[in-house]
Structures are given as structure tokens and as C-alpha cells.
């Protein structure tokens, strides 16, 4: 790995205060006689996680017709893998919760990331992809590399923004010009070091070049399209001042009609507030600097 890239990502913890919950969940899952109540008990040990899960489970994000009262109910209708994905997403938000507002409006940054996650999930559902929650996580993490830059290389971020201001260029082009690599490469390297699943890693790595993602073209295309849509809607800011170019082959790859776009936008509008509340209301613990 490029030494500068390695230096940037070295030592960033992966799971924050959720590491214990995730390890215990895995241990319960590995046990052949585990029940949903056992899984619920593990999650309920963390009141913050419980509150997030029930808030999301009872929101328009899932749209279940009946109210979920317990974590075990939530796990049974949302699905174990999906719950793990949501915990993973919460943990990353927590790890980077301490970044100051001097470089970028972080509330706006997270709004963009969460909206991209909602959009990618909606598009995945429209494509009838199984386990759509993983696309929420992929969308949420697509600009993970920028979080690394904000927290580990603030001076270079200032240079990158200055270069963008002085010339008409995309932020990722300026990143390559200053660093030799862009935020997608940083996000990919960090997620690989965290041993995240290959579909998530590749969706993040190729979200600007989805047709180069090999067997993960569809995953990358869904994140690419959601990112384009959210930039166009001006929903939050990633740091990029332009709506980035759209790869039309990505649209062909997902095989949806353009008429779906309006309902995806409506879903993002409807869900963003509750998702922001569920993910960004992070307690002051395990903050990474």
C-alpha cells in the first residue's frame, strides 16, 4: 500500500463502543440453540443501540404497519443480517463523531451521506435486491475517505479546497492532484483494513467509476446513482460543489425506468429526518480524533 495512504488510515478504530455488542451478537449467532430473545437481550444491554433500532424500526424507513415494541420483534421483522448492518453503520458514525466544524459543515456532510444511504437502499429495493440494508450502509460510507482526510490531514484538505476554488475541477480530481489518490481509494483502504465485506468495500471504492467494479458493478452503480441524485437534490454537502458526472452505463446496469426517480426522491425526503435523528444523536463516548 502507498505509505502516505497507510499513514492516513493507520490506527483508526473500526467499531467504537459497539465492538462489544457486535462481538456478543456474533457469539449468540454462532450458538446453534440461540433464539431471537437471546439476540434481543444482547442488544438491549446497550440502551442507546436499543433506542436507535426501535426508532428506525417504527419509522417510515421500514414502513411496517404494526408498532415494534421489543428488540426481539425488531430483529424478527428486520432480519438479523440487516440489524448487524445497521449497528455497523452506527459504529462508523460514532467513530468519526468528533470531527470539528472548522473544515466542513459536518451536519451537512452526514446529511449527504445518510441521504445517499437511503437513496441507495430505495434503488436496491426497486431493483428487488435482497438485503437492501447493506446498500444503506454502502451509501452511508461512500465518502468515508473524506472523513479520514478531515480528521487526519486537515492541512491537505485546505489545499484541496483552495485548488478547487482556483480552478474549475471536481473535488476528487483535486484530491488526486494533491495526494496522489482520492477519497474513494482512502475509504477502500480503511474498509479493507477493517475487514469489511467485499461488496461494501467495492461499492465505496468504485462509487465514481462503477463500471470498473468487476463483479460488484451493481452495488457500485446503486451507490453512484444515489450519490448523483442526492448531490442534485442539494441534500447536505459532501464538500463537492458540483453535481458530479453521471455514468449512464450505471443506470443501464440497474435496469430501472426513470419514472422511479421521483419516488426515490420522495422516500429520501420522508426518511431523512428520522434517520438523521437515529444515527446522529451520538453520545459523547469513544470519539476518534
Amino acid at each position, binding site marked *: 500500500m502507498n505509505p502516505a495512504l497507510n499513514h492516513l488510515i493507520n490506527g483508526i478504530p473500526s467499531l467504537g463502543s459497539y465492538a462489544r455488542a457486535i462481538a456478543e451478537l456474533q457469539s449468540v449467532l454462532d450458538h446453534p440453540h440461540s433464539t431471537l430473545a437471546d439476540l434481543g437481550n444482547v442488544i438491549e444491554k446497550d440502551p442507546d443501540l436499543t433506542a436507535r433500532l426501535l426508532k428506525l424500526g417504527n419509522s417510515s424507513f421500514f*414502513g411496517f404497519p404494526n408498532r415494534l415494541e421489543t428488540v426481539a420483534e425488531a430483529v424478527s421483522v428486520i432480519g438479523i443480517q440487516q440489524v448487524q448492518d445497521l449497528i455497523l453503520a452506527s459504529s462508523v458514525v460514532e467513530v468519526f463523531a468528533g470531527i470539528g466544524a472548522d473544515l466542513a459543515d459536518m451536519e451537512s456532510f452526514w446529511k449527504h451521506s445518510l441521504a445517499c444511504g437511503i437513496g441507495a437502499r430505495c434503488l436496491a*429495493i426497486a431493483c428487488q435486491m435482497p438485503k437492501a440494508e447493506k446498500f444503506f450502509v454502502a451509501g452511508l460510507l461512500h465518502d468515508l475517505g473524506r472523513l479520514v482526510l478531515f480528521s487526519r490531514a486537515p492541512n491537505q484538505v485546505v489545499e484541496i479546497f483552495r485548488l478547487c476554488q482556483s480552478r474549475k475541477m471536481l473535488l476528487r480530481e483535486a484530491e488526486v492532484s494533491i495526494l496522489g489518490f482520492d477519497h474513494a481509494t482512502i475509504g477502500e483502504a480503511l474498509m479493507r483494513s477493517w475487514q469489511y465485506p467485499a461488496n461494501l468495500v467495492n461499492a465505496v471504492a468504485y462509487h465514481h467509476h462503477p463500471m470498473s467494479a468487476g463483479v460488484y458493478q451493481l452495488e457500485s452503480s446503486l451507490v453512484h446513482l444515489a450519490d448523483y441524485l442526492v448531490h*442534485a*437534490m*442539494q441534500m447536505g454537502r459532501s464538500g463537492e460543489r458540483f*453535481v458530479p458526472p453521471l455514468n449512464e452505463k450505471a443506470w443501464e446496469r440497474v435496469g430501472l425506468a426513470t419514472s422511479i*426517480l421521483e419516488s426515490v*426522491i420522495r422516500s429520501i425526503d420522508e*426518511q431523512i429526518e428520522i434517520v438523521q435523528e437515529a444515527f446522529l444523536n451520538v453520545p459523547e463516548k469513544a470519539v476518534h480524533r
Partner: protein
Amino acid sequence: MVTVDVRNLDNMLLIPAGCELSDRHINILSAWGIAEIQVEACGDSEDSADPLQQLPPETLEQLTLELQAAFWEPAGAGPVQQEVFNLVLRRRAKQVLEQQPLRP
């Protein structure tokens, strides 16, 4: 009114037939990615006017120029870009109207 039960991929009943559609139901449909259901019109309906038609031409032109400047590619670069641009323009026009209601 919904005329046929609406179910998700797992056959879970989301909206029963006979139900009058509300905003909550629309949210449920969006959340499950259901693009079409069978309905029957009932009562009076009030179509909301197209926000693009309600804006003065000069305001619409200014909005269009502002949005075009925000896109790296021209809005008409392809059918998807065009559709997204139109949706975003309509969204911005609605926001402008909400901020500054026009006098009749």
C-alpha cells in the same frame, strides 16, 4: 381508495383493500419500493398546480441558470440527467414558492 390488497415481497399485508389512501400509506409504499397499486377515485380531488407554471418566467429562468451552474455536465447530457434536472428544478421552484408565496 385501494381496491386490491397491497402486499410486500414476503406477502405481508401492507394496506388492505378498501382503505382510503393517506400520506402514511404513501410512505409505506415508498419504503417498500412499490411503484404501482390499484385504486379507485372517491370524493373530490384537488390537484396541486405545477410549481413551474406558478413562477414568474424571469424567476424560473434565474433558477434554471443557477441549477445548470451546479451541474458538472449539461442537464441534457442524457435522459436520466434530464429527468433528474427537471425533478430538481420543480423541487426548487416549490421551495421558492413556499418561501415567497406569489400574490394572485
